[in-house]
């Protein structure tokens, strides 16, 4: 019956190549909305912006240009104390007693105001953190608003969040957030805490505090009672003061595993609750029956989204041996059309590395990868003369013992390993101190379900990657932390059950 041919041979012709040259270069397409930045931002305590008691300030730098964006107040212990006092007062007098349906109105208001000012916030986020404008515009800001909307919806339905139990707010919570998704992490932390009736002292990352302070402007505009949300800025010692304060009924931290461990140590023996969302070294696993082009696209999205500054980044690629060559070739092609450059350009795929310090760390780990024998590939893209940038990088021939396969790089660097059987894939994927996320690419549904149970990771994405929703809990196993953010589970981490 049916016979057909699909294999005309390439006789004597040279190996064909695709040319991704400059026949049709895209002109600069900068986003021009005004980020409405102030020259100087104070601390946001008790509903007002105030300078630090010590009068100290520090600069916030735009990583794409290395120029100063604004001056921020450096909080001291006295400021943190004042923030906690304001939060406790607000909890005792207004927010903690307010019916959920009233709190919901405030949260809805914040969400809508954020949507109204979405472009302004997207530009500010990109200038402050270096991420491409298309990501802050299409992901960070809309998702931040979505988290407020989602939790506003919960605020008057808390009687149903834990069927058969009564829930009560904890009191004041201390929160420290990282620099990779400054505004979004702010929303992840604030929205559930506020919906549940808690008051907050929050510290944004030192290099990316501006959108948190802009959100404080929205909080003012939304007429939130003074003290419900307090934002203190500064470096690690301010974070330590927020995390270690005796007033905090709970602390929530997102950031590096190293800092997370030290917080955990300092809280040992107290009755303070805590949740930690820490690092990751996620495995993205491609089986030989996967739709390869879409898998490659997902892998690219998994590791180069936000320059790889993502705790759930798919930084280890596990490819089935039989298709490893083809997947590597496709990845290299795809890398050639990634556009690295000015984060404010709407066509930029990879923006600036968040800080000089982070750039140094990435560079050191990539050097270690080369030294330890992995094969490096970087496309020949031109990087801007000023600012902190790093080429998208692939390492092939990686083994499990190399540093680039074990340590979180937190940059645009993908380590590629191979496997033969599904068992070996699971074994390698789980052979890490982390357990935040994983990805599986296969056409076989049963295999997806099997791996989802065997992979020790808080999230397992199947035939997709980096998908988030406020209704879906996110969090880790092992050294990736504990506690969940988002969904019902995330809310339960901000309440007392009775």
């Amino acid at each position: 019956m049916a016979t057909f041919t699909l294999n005309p041979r390439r006789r004597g012709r040279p190996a064909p190549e695709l040319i991704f040259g400059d026949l049709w270069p895209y002109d600069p397409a900068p986003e021009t909305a005004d980020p409405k930045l102030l020259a100087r931002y104070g601390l946001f305590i008790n509903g007002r912006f105030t300078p630090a008691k010590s009068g100290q300030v520090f600069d916030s730098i735009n990583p794409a240009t290395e120029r100063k964006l604004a001056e921020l107040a450096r909080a001291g212990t006295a400021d943190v104390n004042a923030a906690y006092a304001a939060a406790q007062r607000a909890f005792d007098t207004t927010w903690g007693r307010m019916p959920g349906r009233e709190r919901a109105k405030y949260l809805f208001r914040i969400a809508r105001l954020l949507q109204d000012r979405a472009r302004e916030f997207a530009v500010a986020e990109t200038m402050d953190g270096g991420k491409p404008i298309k990501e802050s515009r299409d992901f960070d800001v809309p998702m931040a608003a979505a988290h407020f909307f989602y939790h506003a919806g919960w605020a008057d339905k808390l009687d149903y969040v834990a069927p058969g139990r009564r829930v009560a707010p904890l009191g004041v919570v201390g929160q420290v957030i990282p620099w990779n998704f400054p505004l979004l992490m702010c929303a992840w932390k604030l929205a559930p805490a506020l919906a549940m009736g808690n008051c907050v002292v929050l510290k944004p990352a030192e290099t990316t505090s501006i959108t948190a302070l802009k959100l404080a402007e929205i909080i003012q505009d939304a007429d939130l009672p003074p003290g419900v949300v307090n934002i203190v800025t500064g470096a690690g010692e301010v974070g330590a003061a927020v995390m270690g304060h005796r007033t905090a009924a709970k602390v929530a931290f997102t950031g590096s595993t190293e800092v997370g461990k030290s917080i955990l140590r300092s809280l040992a023996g107290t009755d303070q609750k805590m949740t930690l969302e820490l690092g990751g070294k996620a495995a993205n696993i491609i089986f030989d029956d996967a739709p390869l082009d879409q898998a490659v696209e997902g892998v690219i999205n998994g590791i180069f989204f936000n320059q790889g500054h993502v705790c759930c980044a798919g930084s280890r690629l596990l490819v089935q041996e039989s298709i490893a060559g083809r997947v590597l070739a496709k990845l290299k092609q795809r890398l050639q059309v990634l556009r690295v450059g000015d984060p404010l350009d709407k066509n930029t795929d990879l923006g600036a590395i968040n800080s000089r310090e982070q750039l140094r760390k990435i560079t050191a780990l990539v050097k270690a990868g080369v030294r330890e024998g992995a094969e490096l590939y970087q496309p020949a893209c031109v990087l801007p003369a000023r600012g902190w940038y790093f080429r998208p990088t692939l390492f092939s021939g990686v083994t499990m013992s190399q540093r680039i396969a074990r340590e979180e790089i937190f940059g645009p660097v993908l380590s590629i390993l191979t496997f033969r059987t599904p068992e070996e894939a699971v074994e390698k994927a789980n052979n890490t101190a982390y357990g935040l996320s994983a990805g599986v690419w296969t056409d076989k549904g049963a295999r997806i379900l099997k791996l989802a149970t065997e992979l020790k990771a808080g999230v397992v994405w199947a035939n997709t990657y980096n998908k988030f929703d406020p209704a879906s809990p996110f969090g880790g196993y092992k050294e990736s932390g504990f506690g969940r953010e988002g969904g019902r589970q995330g809310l339960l981490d901000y309440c007392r059950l009775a």
Partner: protein
Amino acid sequence: MRGAAASFPLFSPAGGGILRDLMNAGPSASFRRLFDEVGPVDSVGVEERVAKYATRSLKQAAKLWGLRTAVAMVDLTTLEGKDTPGKVASLCRKALRPSDDPAVPPVAAVCVYPAMVRHARRALGPGAKVRIASVATAFPSGQAPLATRLGEVRAAVADGADEIDMVINRGAFLAGEFSRVQDEIAAVRDACGRSTLKVILEVSELETYDKIRAASFLAMTVLRPGDFIKTSTGKTALNATLGNNQVMLEAIRDFYLDTGIPIAMKPAGGIRTAKQALQFLVAVKETLGDAWLNNRRYRFGASALLNDLVRQLAKERTGAYQAPYYFSEAATSY
């Protein structure tokens, strides 16, 4: 693609035996085998990829280059029962000179029914810059005996068609008779002589991305370098989309890297605005690269598109949108 698997003895036509009979047990088994050879497509992933093309922002010189290139890629088409020699002649004049602005290039080709080829040839003259394409093979259904279809192709070529747009036998494809599909394409290819062949898959009748990819490979395998695969006839509800364009571009890319044979691509139907055309070109740039950004390797089968491209070019030149009556709004009047 999985070209290597094609020589696996289990599947070889000479292999025989129960296993082969099982594998050939019907359309479903045939498709399974074909998908296994060319690899599957994930529709959600494709849609996500192409959504990113629409976010590319083209400004200034990039926009101008894109618009001009798109004009030069148009196969200006009229395929109606009411086509007359006069209508075709005016189509040809529009094709040669789409705008009073001399910077706007002529289009790539006019596309007409076989009976109109000689009128187009007379209007354009021999050796014209604009090529003549003719749909043949009982377009759009293809439901005529092979001999009739081949006769139509030969007649169109004899009348002066530089390019033949054929439809594949979807009935045979959906029934799993892949060798018949290929044999018919090969027969049409031979009947084309030196004329370029474009193979219309009619994607909306194939329904899934898996089948679009599979049909692309079936066609490409029997085509010559520079022949086209084409999305659709324009006569069904759903025609060219960024999604099926992407699936076919990726098939062309995989086939090229495997065999060194460059196959050209023509999305047709449903591309009406300059904005859409630019998004399709972005897909070409980012999937196949510079070598496909010309009208030997990429075409738009369209009619209304041309005037929108000309309108946008005028806007780029003058900085203002011109009144609509400067351009004919109706797709059917030139």
